[in-house]
């Protein structure tokens, strides 16, 4: 037993390693990146277990699923929107089931610190009808990972561990246990793993038949706990994940003494919820993300004779993350006294491209090439270059999801938009852009795709990109873009005029062009120089 200080992401990863992990896969994305970063760091260069980045989350999930098929304990980690990408294998893996333990760690980003939307991955676990864990702190993140593998192997189903930004990116102490050995290879049963209708129907029935057992586990799990106050029946709180921390932070040392049901595992522990609700007059539900628990308690008709409060009732905001203050208010406690400070007009400080970033030079050239062309639209994508939306560039018009730029440019071009330009980074192109470019090339869509090859996944801290350099050029040619319509530029101020000319030529040309702007990310170059 040793105590270590770890990021929440690292605690979950270490729990998986000590549970006997064989293989982990992931695609970078805030706030989940540190899970794989840490696994790679402690994998002994892959000698202790496999820990690798994948091309995207779907691929990562399938790689982990393959390891599980082989009887090995496998992990796949991703940010919330990554699970959308991996949703196809995720949903069907609930039917194949897990042979070796299969854990999906999904990190949500309520408040959208570094994301394009808020979504609550607990719904995915509910949708797939698999068990889900939601840690309140670092120790639980560590312990739950181990427990998740035990359940996954006991029931033969994948299990989700749902993290949120504040825990993923907070450091705290973790007492670790002795690790256990990995599983030997033991192949899956072909009847379970071949989801032909004839097999899939029985696998689905099996999943349905397991539900009552999942429910019984939730009611008895040490991660769910009910603390009834016999002396006060007014208020009962249901708090899940890190929500319970804000409750404890606020009621400690105050006169309030509500009954508290802490939830750390799903399906929702029905028995415990019933006992709490029976005991109190008003129920307040506090959960990070969407009102999943609250909505299921409310149903269509509410709870007769009881008052139900939470996000749906307006006691807590529906958008953004919880805070000690918002929970304090929901608990009807007076705000803490603060230092009194006269108002001061604060200027915001949004993130921006590094000084000298190659993207900046590309955007300057692109802006000039598009000047005076009314209706020109730049469909962009997810990465550092999304910051090109801000002044002084104002260079992009859209950012939706990984890879959306190319498909949207094709659709808009076919709807009559000209010039239609897609701007996408090398790693995002590898993740989800290749198939869209295959489509655009097949239809000779009239558009220009600018691929910003900075040789890395920059925004999330410099993970390897798989579609960069020479391989990137071969992919572009391979999907059918004519060789003379693939142009390579170097985004540097001294090549500005030339780059503007090349961009303008391709914009004016019919059909599809791809311009690859190649220059390494400065942060990456700096890191390499340090090594």
């Amino acid at each position: 037993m040793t105590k270590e200080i770890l990021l929440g992401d690292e605690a979950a990863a270490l729990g998986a390693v000590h549970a006997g992990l064989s293989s982990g896969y992931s695609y970078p994305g805030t706030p989940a990146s540190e899970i794989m970063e840490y696994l790679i760091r402690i994998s002994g260069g892959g000698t202790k277990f496999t820990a690798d980045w994948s091309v995207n989350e779907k691929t990562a999930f399938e790689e982990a699923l393959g390891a599980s098929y082989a009887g090995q304990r496998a992990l796949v980690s991703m940010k919330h929107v990554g699970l959308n990408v991996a949703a196809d294998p995720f949903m069907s893996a609930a039917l194949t089931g897990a042979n070796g333990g299969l854990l999906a760690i999904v990190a949500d980003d309520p408040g959208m610190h570094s994301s394009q939307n808020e979504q609550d991955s607990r719904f995915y676990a509910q949708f797939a009808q698999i068990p889900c864990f939601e840690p309140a702190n670092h120790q639980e993140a560590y312990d739950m990972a181990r427990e998740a593998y035990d359940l996954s192997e006991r029931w033969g189903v994948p299990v989700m561990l749902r993290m949120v930004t504040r825990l993923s990116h907070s450091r705290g102490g973790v007492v670790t246990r002795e690790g256990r050995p990995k599983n030997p290879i033991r192949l899956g049963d072909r009847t379970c793993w071949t989801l032909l209708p004839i097999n899939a129907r029985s696998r689905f029935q099996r999943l349905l038949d397991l539900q009552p057992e999942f429910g019984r586990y939730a009611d008895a799990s040490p991660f769910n706990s009910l603390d009834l106050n016999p002396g006060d029946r007014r208020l009962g709180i249901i708090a899940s994940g890190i929500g319970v921390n804000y409750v404890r932070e606020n009621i400690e040392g105050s006169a309030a003494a509500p009954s508290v049901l802490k939830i750390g595992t799903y399906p929702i522990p029905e028995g415990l919820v019933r006992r709490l609700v029976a005991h109190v007059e008003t129920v307040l539900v506090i959960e990070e993300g969407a009102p999943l628990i609250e909505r299921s308690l409310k149903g269509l008709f509410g709870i007769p004779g009881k008052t139900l409060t939470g996000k749906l009732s307006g006691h807590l905001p529906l958008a953004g993350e919880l805070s000690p203050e918002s929970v304090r208010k929901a608990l009807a406690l007076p705000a803490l006294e603060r230092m009194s400070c006269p108002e001061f007009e604060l200027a915001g400080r949004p993130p921006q491209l590094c000084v000298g970033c190659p993207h900046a030079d590309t955007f300057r050239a692109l802006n000039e090439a598009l000047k005076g062309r009314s209706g020109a639209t730049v469909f962009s994508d997810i990465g550092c270059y999304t910051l090109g939306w801000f002044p002084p560039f104002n260079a992009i018009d859209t950012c939706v999801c990984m890879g959306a730029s190319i498909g949207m440019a094709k659709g808009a071009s076919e709807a009559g938009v000209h010039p239609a330009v897609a701007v996408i980074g090398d790693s995002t192109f590898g993740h989800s852009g290749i198939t869209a470019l295959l489509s655009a090339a097949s239809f000779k869509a009239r558009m220009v795709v600018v691929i910003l090859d900075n040789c890395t996944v920059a925004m999330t801290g410099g993970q390897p990109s798989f579609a960069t350099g020479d391989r990137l050029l071969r992919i572009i040619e391979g999907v059918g873009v004519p060789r003379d319509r693939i142009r390579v530029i170097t985004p540097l101020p001294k090549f500005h005029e030339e780059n503007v000319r090349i961009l303008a030529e391709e914009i004016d040309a019919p059909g599809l062009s791809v311009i690859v702007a190649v220059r390494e990310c400065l942060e990456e170059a700096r890191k390499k120089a340090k090594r």
Partner: protein
Amino acid sequence: MITSRKQDIILAGVGGQGILSIAFVIDNAALREGFNVKQAEVHGMAQRGGAVQSHLRLSRDAIHSDLIPKGAADLVLSVEPLEALRYLDYLRPGGRVVSSSTPFINIPDYPKLEAVLGRIREIPGSLVLDSEALAKEAGTSKAQNTVILGAAASFLAVAEESLLEYIKVLFAPRGDKVLGANLRAFELGRKAAG
């Protein structure tokens, strides 16, 4: 150093200014001294030159929330003056600010520096120092974060020796020159605080 069962500190600055390095040093110093520690930090997009902060909580007792409640912070340590102002509503009555006076101007609407500094100085017990000049004197303008750490040392609930130990752990791998500059930066910050 001060004696306290718990301490809540907001660290503030701009992405790239080394907030997380200060956090690393205080975290580990506190752990060594038997404190429980929680430290919420900012990763991802904001690290690209945006406003970043870290909530650092030390306590002899259990720590619940990863975030410091508004009105609970004992200290705001900031490597940038405008960023210091952003978190004043976290301070408890009697809380303190230690801030650099060196602005990091990467936005078009940066307020008048005198107004910013004046505003910090209105806070009783606040300390504003020219971290850039002191860091340069120590050998590298990059050590402004360590200057601020040194200036705050006497207000922290952990001993100076522990801080110095983890400054060594952090900077020794980057070579003697970097380590030496940071040790000097700490010392200059400490002296400037008087």
